């Protein structure tokens, strides 16, 4: 088990070196994709490795020449990494119009350290699920496919695309299995381990990740599911970035166990499969329009994040919700007050913790979490 975890940890510990090493060994191309909606399957079917861009491992410095400090963590971080040349191992980058800030990142990258391949997808929100938006999304995915064919010199057939979808579906299904085990057996894995397992899936080849996940699940079954005691909490939010590992440790050290989440480097990443059909691009498009888990960046008028959380917490019999709000994330900022009201009306305890790129005051967070822990039932 320890040996398997070591392999999961390798990529998140130093994505820059691990991915560059993989590239050197395989002689394949690496494409960085901006969170959260770009269909990796199309890039994989082109024979390249899609890696989800991450919050970097050092303080923002050069990046501040290009973006104000009050941009969100992922935007600042990707800009900073790009202008410093830390992402030069990426042969290409795919960006998207997800929020106001993200639409400006590719412009800065292009002006400073343009990769060999770059694409920008105008992926629309999913409000009305109208034909116009669906047709447009389909065309955007087709365009990405064509551009990757030109760049890689390899045709992306429907068969190849379906193979990639199958592989990715399998990865998602294994991750969901792991999450189900955690729901049934709280504390079965440490929060930091669960996070790194999901994060490594965003960075390493899915073929390898699937093997590791299968080994892990089998080992866990062999060893028996050991649970821990503590108050059950649900982790919500944290769009686009991974939270600090220390924060997850702190939650556990205070006697709470994360039993489920809807964070991006978590359930949100692997929630929905694409169907295997004769029209794989259509299947990817249909997945884009699935309305749950509610995504405030993608727009909603028919489903409600607060109500969704209430349903999940009740089903899990969890004691409360810890909201992780990525600082300066407008979609979450604008939604949060309504979630808070919904949860308060339903009598579900909740605490808001802001997460940033670099310095977060762990001591003040600890005080808040201690109070929250007392609120949901003392120590």
């Amino acid at each position: 088990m320890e040996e398997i975890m070591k392999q999961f940890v390798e990529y998140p510990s130093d994505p820059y070196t691990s991915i560059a090493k993989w590239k050197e060994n395989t002689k394949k191309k690496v494409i960085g994709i901006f969170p959260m909606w770009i269909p990796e399957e199309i890039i994989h079917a082109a024979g390249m490795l899609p890696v989800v861009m991450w919050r970097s491992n050092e303080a923002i410095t050069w990046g501040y020449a290009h973006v104000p400090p009050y941009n969100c963590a992922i935007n600042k971080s990707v800009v900073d990494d790009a202008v410093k040349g830390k992402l030069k191992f990426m042969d290409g980058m795919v960006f998207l119009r997800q929020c106001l800030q993200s639409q400006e990142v590719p412009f800065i990258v292009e002006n400073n350290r343009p990769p060999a391949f770059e694409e920008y997808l105008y992926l629309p929100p999913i409000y009305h699920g109208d034909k116009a938006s669906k047709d447009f999304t389909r065309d955007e995915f087709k365009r990405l496919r064509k551009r990757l064919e030109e760049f890689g010199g390899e045709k992306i057939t429907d068969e190849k695309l379906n193979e990639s979808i199958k592989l990715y579906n399998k990865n998602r299904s294994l991750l969901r299995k792991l999450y189900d085990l955690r729901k049934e057996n709280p504390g079965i894995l440490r929060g930091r381990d669960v996070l790194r397992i999901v994060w490594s899936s965003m960075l390493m080849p899915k073929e390898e990740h699937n093997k590791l996940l299968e080994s892990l699940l089998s080992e866990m079954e062999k060893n028996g599911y050991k649970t821990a005691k503590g108050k059950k909490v649900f982790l919500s939010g944290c769009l686009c970035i991974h939270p600090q590992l220390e924060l997850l440790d702190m939650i556990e050290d205070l006697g709470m166990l994360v039993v489920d989440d809807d964070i991006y480097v978590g359930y949100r990443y692997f929630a929905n499969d694409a169907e295997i059909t004769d029209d794989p691009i259509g299947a990817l498009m249909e997945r884009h329009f699935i309305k749950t888990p509610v995504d405030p960046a993608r727009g909603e008028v028919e489903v409600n994040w607060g109500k969704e959380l209430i349903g999940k917490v009740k089903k899990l019999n969890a004691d409360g919700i810890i909201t992780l709000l990525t600082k300066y994330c407008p979609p979450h900022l604008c939604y949060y007050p309504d979630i808070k009201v919904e949860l308060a009306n339903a009598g579900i305890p909740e605490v808001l913790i802001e997460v940033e790129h670099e310095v977060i005051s762990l001591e003040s967070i600890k005080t808040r979490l201690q109070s929250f822990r007392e609120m949901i039932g003392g120590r």
Partner: protein
Amino acid sequence: MNTQYKINKLDTSGVGPLVDRHWRELREAKEKGMKIAWCAGPMFVYAYATPNIASHFMAGYAAYCGGRGMADEVLEAAERYGELRDTCSYHRLHTGMAAMIMNDWPVSNPQVLLPMPDLLIGGRFCTEMSHYMEAIHRRFGIKAVTIEIPSARSREDLPRLEKFLTDQVKETLIPAIEEVSGSKFDEENMRSILRPWKETCIIRNKCWEFFKLKPSPWTLWDYGVSIAPVFYAMGKPESLEYYNNLLKQLEERTEKNIPAVHPDGEKYRLYWDGWLPWSFLGKFIRMMIPYGAIPIAGRYPWEFFPHPEDINTEADDIIHEWIRLIYTSPNTLSYHDGPWGGQEHIEDLIQTYSIDGMLFFSSNSKYRKKIRHTRDCH
């Protein structure tokens, strides 16, 4: 000896009654049995062109609250509801006002309470705009239609983005307007509004030309406070009258060599990037004027229908024609508004208006246009 600079504002007092009338009519609309639409972004024109719908152009509400000294009170109401300070101030102003209505909270000046809408129209030119639509929808259950209006990365993208927007408007927005208004969308009515509006914008652009003069007879702030008539009196004769009066003043000043800055005109001509700080226009100009500096040009105030000459008000498909103005018309707004075309546009403004310096204004509570157009300096 140091020059003592002094600002000499243009007479823009005519805008007040015109704007007041708009807000009064909006407040009275419900009593007259009209429907109300709150609109963010350039899709407001379709609601505006519907006779029994009174439209509130949401971006103007910040200036409205600021002008009445009520911005702080409304923002405090938003915080009392639970809004977080990093959230866009346009969002907080509307949700604050909605919270005052919803909770019957006391308000010093009830004029800031607008009638609640029957329809929300969100144009995602700025994605933030959709968030306040969603919030109002969640809290009041009001029908919300949100339309995606992406800024173009390249000119090649413009035709397909134009088609996408046209399809959305025809498939989703127009039927929603028809449902709320209870009548078929009247394209001829839209033309009848756009004809005088086009004429007005052409006169307004003649005024804008005076920024090329050195010294300049007016400042970007004079222009900024004059922005309202093209929204609030769209297609109405008084808007044309307002700009004709402005043009006359500018011609007179030019003829008599009266500059916007006493005694001999501005020393520095500034490019102002980002939105105009409606509540603090006076404070900012007082900071600049001791140095003989004034704002002359900017992208944000120029983005509101800068090229009326490009629209054919007699087009058969007038619904599409408005969208063409945004995308594939010769002076594409969508491309110039995004970061890629924005850079070209800024360069052009700097040259055309003989700019000496640039001021990038971006605040953490109003997110649009906040990147710095910098190239690698390392």
